[in-house]
């Protein structure tokens, strides 16, 4: 597979195997209704990016009738958004009539940016945040210029770095590549 991020003309739209694995888990799940309901839950720090598309939502299990365990993973181990995400999941499901829900945090597989869906990349870009690229040299999400400069290895959250565009002078967050 040719995956040279700077070279847009050569990009072939294939799914990353890590994301393909997630699709498999979702499509083979018996609980399609719940997956769909959870598509309404967004990352609290990234409004517009769903927990499915970001790769946080990993699995849905059930051990008893109408009792569900939602398995999520954290982007970074100290991510302070975890409690808000848990609450949002429980709230969304309870609104749909599922009131026996608990949220489990799974450590394996460890989250990485390959878990982000192609849709997630678009959602991130729509927030003027540069989505992850393999060479950590993002294009400016505002004007599209390749000439960007790292200002700080951390941006507004652990998962982002802070850049400036040398073309339009805009500063922007870059969603760091993590393999």
């Amino acid at each position, binding site marked *: 597979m040719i995956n040279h991020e700077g070279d847009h003309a050569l990009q072939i739209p294939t799914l990353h195997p890590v994301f393909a694995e997630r699709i498999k888990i979702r499509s083979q799940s018996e609980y399609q209704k719940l997956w769909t309901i959870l598509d309404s839950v967004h990352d609290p720090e990234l409004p517009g990016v769903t927990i499915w598309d970001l790769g946080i939502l990993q699995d849905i299990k059930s051990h008893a009738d109408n009792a569900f365990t939602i398995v999520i993973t954290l982007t970074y*181990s*100290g991510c*302070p958004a975890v*409690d808000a995400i848990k609450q949002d999941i429980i709230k969304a499901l309870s609104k749909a009539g599922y009131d026996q829900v608990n949220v489990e945090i799974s*450590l394996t597989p460890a989250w*990485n940016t390959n878990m982000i869906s192609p849709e997630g990349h678009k959602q991130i870009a729509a927030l003027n945040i540069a989505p992850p690229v393999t060479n950590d040299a993002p294009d400016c999400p505002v004007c599209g210029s390749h000439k960007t400069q790292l200002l700080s290895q951390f941006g507004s959250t652990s998962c982002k770095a802070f850049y400036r565009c040398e073309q339009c002078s805009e500063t922007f967050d870059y969603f760091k590549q*993590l393999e």
Partner: protein
Amino acid sequence: MQATSSNKTNSSNTTIGAEKTHSLLNENRYRFALALADDAVVLGHRLSEWCSNAPFLEEDIALTNVSLDYIGRARMFYQYATELEGKGHSEDQMAFFRTEREYTNLLILELPIGDFAFTMVRQFFVDVFYKLYLEQLMTSTDERIAAIAAKSIKETRYHLKRSEPWIRQLSEGTEESRSRINRALDELKSFVGELFIMPEWETQLANEGIAVDRKTLQQDWDAYVQKFLGESNIEFEDSKTLIRGGREGIHTEHLGHLLSEMQYLQRAHPGLEW
């Protein structure tokens, strides 16, 4: 641990020997998870002290994000430790209600933040260590430990990407920045050796494939650090001089002050939650 062994010894006397070994192993495993948690929370707290005090805004954000990674790491290890302990303690109780003597973190992690050069040299030392250490810990036969290591190594690699350019920049910067790097190296060199000491219980765990033999990492650590600093013409002898005691709960005078600040809120309002 006591509970599990007594439950089972009732059912069959022949398994007593095996149970004792198992119970000891479990206790070692608990000490191990707790020690790694203490290491992470103490460094995490130190780094958080830079909040609003860093040389400039971006650095402020970066240091506190690294801090957050360590606090997250501490939470994962504390959670596991409480499960191994089996007494129903919470992670908060582990972090906020244990005294200085009960803390088993390594001494290098509790030293005050000093100036920016000191903080970055310590971070560089620790990042290089964790890079070597976690890569091995990822293959631990204890799946939970392996999973935490797999999560943490990603963060550590990034931390190192950040501490290295700083060490380079300060070493090759002005006379002032270079002298501060040298001063930090001088102050830290005696504490580095403790990173590679193996208490007996940890050796037992290493024999079981649960822990990593730290001693085997020392040569690689020395070589890596000497080469990196050498490229900026900074001399660093080795990590052999030892000030030790952290794993036995014997600390520098600094830990008590750190804990009094870190634990104040929970001690004043036990059980307080956000």
